[in-house]
């Protein structure tokens, strides 16, 4: 077991503790007088018009896919950046090709207007 990760667990525990303390304090200190009107969804003073869950624009989905693609690209770059000095010119060329291919993708997306949100 890597000892250096124990503090991370501790940090998560402490963070969770803070959250738990807040929720618990809110439960004990706050009043609890539910009423149907109070628990209705806020729709600017209008009676709620049914569940909000509905279908959403496909553009958000595209954003998520683009994010994954570029996130994976970024993830590949981290080990490369760490080892960059030993890799030298070879590393630069290697990553240039990689980035170039993805830049083509970016340009394609750009040209297709998929980066327009209005």
């Amino acid at each position, binding site marked *: 077991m890597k*000892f*250096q*990760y*124990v*503090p*991370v667990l*501790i*940090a*998560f525990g*402490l*963070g*969770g503790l*803070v*959250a738990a303390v*807040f*929720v618990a*304090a*809110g*439960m004990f*200190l*706050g*009043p*609890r*007088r*539910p009423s*149907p009107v*109070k*628990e*209705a*969804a*806020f*729709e600017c003073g209008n009676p*709620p018009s049914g*569940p*909000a*869950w509905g279908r959403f624009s496909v553009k*958000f989905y595209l*954003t998520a896919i*683009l*994010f994954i693609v*570029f*996130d994976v690209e*970024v993830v590949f*770059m*981290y080990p490369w*950046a*760490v*080892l*960059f*000095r030993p890799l*030298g*010119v070879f*590393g*630069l060329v290697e*990553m240039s090709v990689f*980035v170039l291919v993805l830049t083509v993708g*970016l340009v394609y997306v750009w040209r297709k207007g998929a*980066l327009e*949100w*209005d």
Partner: protein
Amino acid sequence: MPADVAIATAKVLFALFLALQIMGLGVFFERKVSALIQDRIGANRAAIFGFAGLGLVNTLIADPIKFLLKEDITPAQSDRLLHFIAPCASLVPALATFAVVPFGDVLALGGRLINLQGAELNVGLLFVLAMASLGVYGVVLAGWASNNRWSLLGGIRGSAQMISYEVAMGLALIGVVLTYNTLDLQEIARAQGRLLWGWLPAWGILYQPLAFVVFLVAGIAESKRIPFDLPESESELVSGYFTEYSGAKHLMFMMSDFVEVVLVAALVTTLFFGGWQVPYLARDGFHFPWGTAVALPSLVVALLQVTAFALKVIAFTWLQIVIRWTLPRFRYDQLMRLGWKGLLPVSLANVMVSALLVLLAGRGA
């Protein structure tokens, strides 16, 4: 082993304590700096047991208490469990990130050399990114679980915004990694103690100015504050993804926002402004470029470093608050355009140019 665990716990506790203290100060700034900017008096009404003398300190205590004393309403048609999990998912990763931020060099205490960093991860930088990417869930779950149109719009907006700026943020950090060739935040902070030409501290901003700008912008976007507060922009989406939150859970969202502000300030400090480095201060004391040296005990050095770190973080927290009270808000399409068509290509170019420069510098040396 128990001693190690105790020290580790103490360090994490201290890191979180420091973060929460600076957060409190951030709230102070938010109230008073904004009042100063806008020619107002600002919060001055809270009195505890009739004692209003400390003015804002009272407000800082009274604010969370007020939140906790409010009823915590869960809308009837919401998804109760996720509605509860969302604020926790927002707050916990933000707090946990502080574990990897170094707040000092080493402290020699009782024969031990204590590394002043909560968790000494050799992949600390990636840990930061991982936690940032987990922060999305708080927003998206809050938006979805509330089952309210405003929340849903805010949640979708917020998550799309956060993931878009995460890419730019990650790319900006690669420039830093190229400079220091490590993912360990403590190593990065230490490397910034070098002096250029014998007098200029080699802080990251000198090597990666562009990355600094991109990181700061993306960081503000991640913490969802003006000009990037679209997920919660009240004049458009009421309160965005936390429209349906009240009481303690609402407090947690507000708090995680502020924790993120401090986090961005801490990361900017660590990566670009020398972290805990005090110019010319080494482990054994000051070594000024003109030859003077002042020997200092380890405890004093550590104290100086922690103070310097805290001051820098406070300065960047302040900067973010000034930005928040100066700029108007983006529109959604402008925000996305800035992220994808502005920051992304710029940071990508920054990576490649940095790599080239590193290579050339390596050749020259």
